[in-house]
């Protein structure tokens, strides 16, 4: 029967150049490898409720977490709140300790820091003075602006047990801080960081300097010139205390010619400050070190996360924090800027306060900012998880075991989340 059959090769489909595949396989293979590298995995939204939460109190809020992942210090940011109330939330048992500093009634707060074990907290005011609140024994002292006057003056702190939260809610609005009244220079303390050995702290004042001061006496140990600062500054000290990274977000276009706004200072050695970015404008609002101190992760205006090498300042990876690529695309493609060019920054008032954190094992990154989502990433930029919040995320942190995360919101609420494995 088969002899009479026509040959197997049917010519139904003509050997038309339009139909056949003519690209060399090698070119397709290269494309496939590249696509595998660049494709993004689908976003997994967190649907579980947080393990613990602290209800919102201030809006906007300045939140900082202790290194042991237990304590959150919540205070009003950039707004006048009567009595300067500071709340310490214990995530383990949910207890809130509130204190009111009676003397500083008219000052604004822009920065705060909690020690590792929640024993004391530093709060920086807009006139340059820093309050040190010893939570254990309920005392407090104020570091004066001029460190020559050394020892901090003792001040009264009123412990408050039953807070009427409703009276502390301030007006919501844009992210622009109210500027304190007074002449230039503005000594507002815009960023604070406590060193890992808790012997000194770094203070970033709006007037161009970062100062390392002794914790006990307030004396100035080191002073570094950084340049004009704004209210969206963040400082980070590496785990071994040898490096300090400072990130500045800029809200106006007066500072044409700046090439980079993340600077790494060498605290113990003699290396010159390293400015990150090179040909790309980096207006960062959040910065942190990896646990081994070799990498720096930053979050920029418009929401681009970048991983840098802390030694030579080279950019290792960057990816957008947001899903929408339009915002991020034109920032990524921005080329080298001549010193005379005016720079426009993409609406930092929308992005405003933000935060990044690196897990203790150095493998994962948490980032949170103006798009109200906290996202968990792997080190090469694959998004692993997304935690939606009700308002913008102001601070994120890992717990020391790397299994849980803390996040603080613009409205003063703080949450403890379970992380996926």
């Amino acid at each position, binding site marked *: 029967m088969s002899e009479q059959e026509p040959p*197997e090769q049917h010519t139904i489909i003509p050997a038309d150049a339009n139909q056949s595949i*003519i690209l060399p396989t090698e070119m397709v293979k290269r*494309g496939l490898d590249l696509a595998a590298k660049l494709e993004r995995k689908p976003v997994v939204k967190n649907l579980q409720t947080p393990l613990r939460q602290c209800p919102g109190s201030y809006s906007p809020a300045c939140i900082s977490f202790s290194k042991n992942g237990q304590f959150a210090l919540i205070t009003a940011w950039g707004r006048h709140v009567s009595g300067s109330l500071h709340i310490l939330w214990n995530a383990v048992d949910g207890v809130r300790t509130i204190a009111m500093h009676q003397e500083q009634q008219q000052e604004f707060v822009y920065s705060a820091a909690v020690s590792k074990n929640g024993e004391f907290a530093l709060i920086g005011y807009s006139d340059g003075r820093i309050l040190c609140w010893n939570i254990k024994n309920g005392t407090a002292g104020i570091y004066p602006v001029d460190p020559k006057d050394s020892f901090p003056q003792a001040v009264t702190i009123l412990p408050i047990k039953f807070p009427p939260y409703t009276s502390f809610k301030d007006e919501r609005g844009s992210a622009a801080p109210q500027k304190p009244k007074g002449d230039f220079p503005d000594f507002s303390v815009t960023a604070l960081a406590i060193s890992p050995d808790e012997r000194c702290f770094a203070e970033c004042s709006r007037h161009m300097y970062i100062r390392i001061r002794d914790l006990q006496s307030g004396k100035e140990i080191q002073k570094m010139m950084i340049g004009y600062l704004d209210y969206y500054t963040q400082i980070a000290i590496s785990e071994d205390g040898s490096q300090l990274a400072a990130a500045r977000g800029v809200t106006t276009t007066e500072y044409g010619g700046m090439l980079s706004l993340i600077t790494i200072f060498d605290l113990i050695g003699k290396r010159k400050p390293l400015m990150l970015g090179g040909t790309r404008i980096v207006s960062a609002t959040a910065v942190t070190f990896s646990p081994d101190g070799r990498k720096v992760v930053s979050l920029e205006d418009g929401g681009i996360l970048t991983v840098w090498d802390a030694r030579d300042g080279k950019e290792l990876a960057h990816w957008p924090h947001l899903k929408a690529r339009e915002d991020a695309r034109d920032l990524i493609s921005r080329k080298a800027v001549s010193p005379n060019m005016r720079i426009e920054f993409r609406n930092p008032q929308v992005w405003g306060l933000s935060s990044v954190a690196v897990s203790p094992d150095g493998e994962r990154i948490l980032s949170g900012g103006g798009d109200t989502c906290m996202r968990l990433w792997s080190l090469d930029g694959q998004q692993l998880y997304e935690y939606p919040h009700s308002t913008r995320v102001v601070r994120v942190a890992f717990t020391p075991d790397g299994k849980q995360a803390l996040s603080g919101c613009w409205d003063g609420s703080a949450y403890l989340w379970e992380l996926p494995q």
Partner: protein
Amino acid sequence: MVNSNPDPNPSPSAQASQNQQARFEELSKELAEKELELATLQNELASFETRYARTVGVYFAELDRLDREIARELARLHPEESYQQGYRRAEKKAQTSQEAVDRKLEKEPKTFNPSEELKNLFRKVAKTIHPDLATNEEERAYRTELMARANAAYRDGDAAALEKILYEWEHRDEMKTQAEKQALELDGLDQKIARIQRRLAEIQRKIDEFQKSELHQLMLKVKRAEEQGQDLLSEMAANLQPQIRAAQKYLNHLKQEKGPG
């Protein structure tokens, strides 16, 4: 051609032929469906290939071209045989990629998106004029030609051409009597069924081959990324720019070096 009034009490042989008839119907429907699937897959791959060549392929070709220039400069600077061989290889590679990309660039990139009506029409046409349903060689040749036209019409999205093919087929031979046609039909039923089954197997093989190919995998990746809102092809193109710039810089650096003698 089908016996539209089946005998309610058929004899065993008539029963067998009715079963055959039913089986034949079923198989030819399946055949039409499979031809549609194969044609759709091929056209999708072809249009994706064009799109890929225009967005990313050009940059790969550019990289290959720069590699060739770099190899040329290196061959100039080092007279050893290995460098000369490297240059010849790079030249060949650059030529193949450039040719392939040029051929693809000539055409307009149209996404292949057939409507349901077009698909139904193609199914109907395939069922009617498929060459494996032919009863003799002459008819087979005619059917083959019609099928080729049908495939081209499907690729171009031309419903009018498909209708025209159907019309041509239906009016091809008004003269043959019903009995003659029927006689010719029933003889070839077994053979036709066998041919259809062979053709089905072949189509399945071709579809599997296409689906295993890297181009198909790439197409799936791009589609999935599009659903997520990511324009993967332009990201790939953007990713190649730094490599091209680095290669250009290296080439400029090499051009300035002085060769031996």
